[in-house]
């Protein structure tokens, strides 16, 4: 037997199988909706951070560097553009499927 090869009936394989089945029963696969919600929450956090930074820049310009504000702003913008691209593509795929005939 090769080093590292696992026989199908070995204890290790059984353990893994049992674990996988148990896990599947407890947590079903995360739905696309909840995944998207989580991702959007992170994107929103970036937006909130950049907003806070912008407010600090307006109320107390000596406290922050302008380039930190603009960097955060563009990072938030990039994250939003990415999530928009993802949703657009999913919606497009859905349209493709619904228009099958």
């Amino acid at each position, binding site marked *: 037997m090769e080093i590292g090869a696992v026989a199908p009936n070995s204890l290790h394989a059984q353990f893994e199988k049992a674990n996988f089945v148990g896990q599947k029963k407890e947590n079903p696969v995360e739905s696309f909706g909840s995944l998207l919600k989580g991702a959007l929450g992170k994107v929103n956090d970036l937006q909130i951070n950049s907003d806070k930074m912008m407010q600090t820049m307006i109320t107390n310009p000596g406290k922050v*560097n302008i*380039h*930190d504000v603009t*960097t955060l702003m*563009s*990072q938030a913008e*990039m994250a939003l*553009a*990415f999530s928009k*691209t993802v949703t657009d593509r999913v919606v497009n795929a859905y349209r493709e499927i619904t228009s099958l005939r």
Partner: protein
Amino acid sequence: MGTFDAMNISASGLTAQRLRMDVIANNIANVNTTRTSEGGPFRRSKVILRPRTERWNFKSHFLPEALKHQAGEGVRVLKVMKDASPNRLKFDPAHPDAIQFGPKKGHVELPNVNIVVEMVDMISATRAYEANVTLMNSTKQMFSRALNIGVR
């Protein structure tokens, strides 16, 4: 590598160049300062930079290559230190800070700030800042190009 790593690295460069600019402004503003709280004339400051590697003390030969952060993590300011080069001497016996005794009697010690050197440093800091901004814009452009992959 994360999506924003290049931007964060450029941001560290921007911060460092901003600090260089502040130090140069202070040097130029104090070009004629003959009295400081430490005694003697003002001394020119300079900024010492070093690469920022957050995990530098855990670096090990046993670490797999894939775990090493090969691109680095940007720059940080190690310290702002005083330039120890000799001060300028100017003959001005009427000045209140003129040397009263010894062979240099009647001379005033002026700061070791050379306006021309500061000017060159200022241009260098400005250009380095610009380069970092350009890099950041290019990173953003690359990102938006990547979003357009496969668009019909």
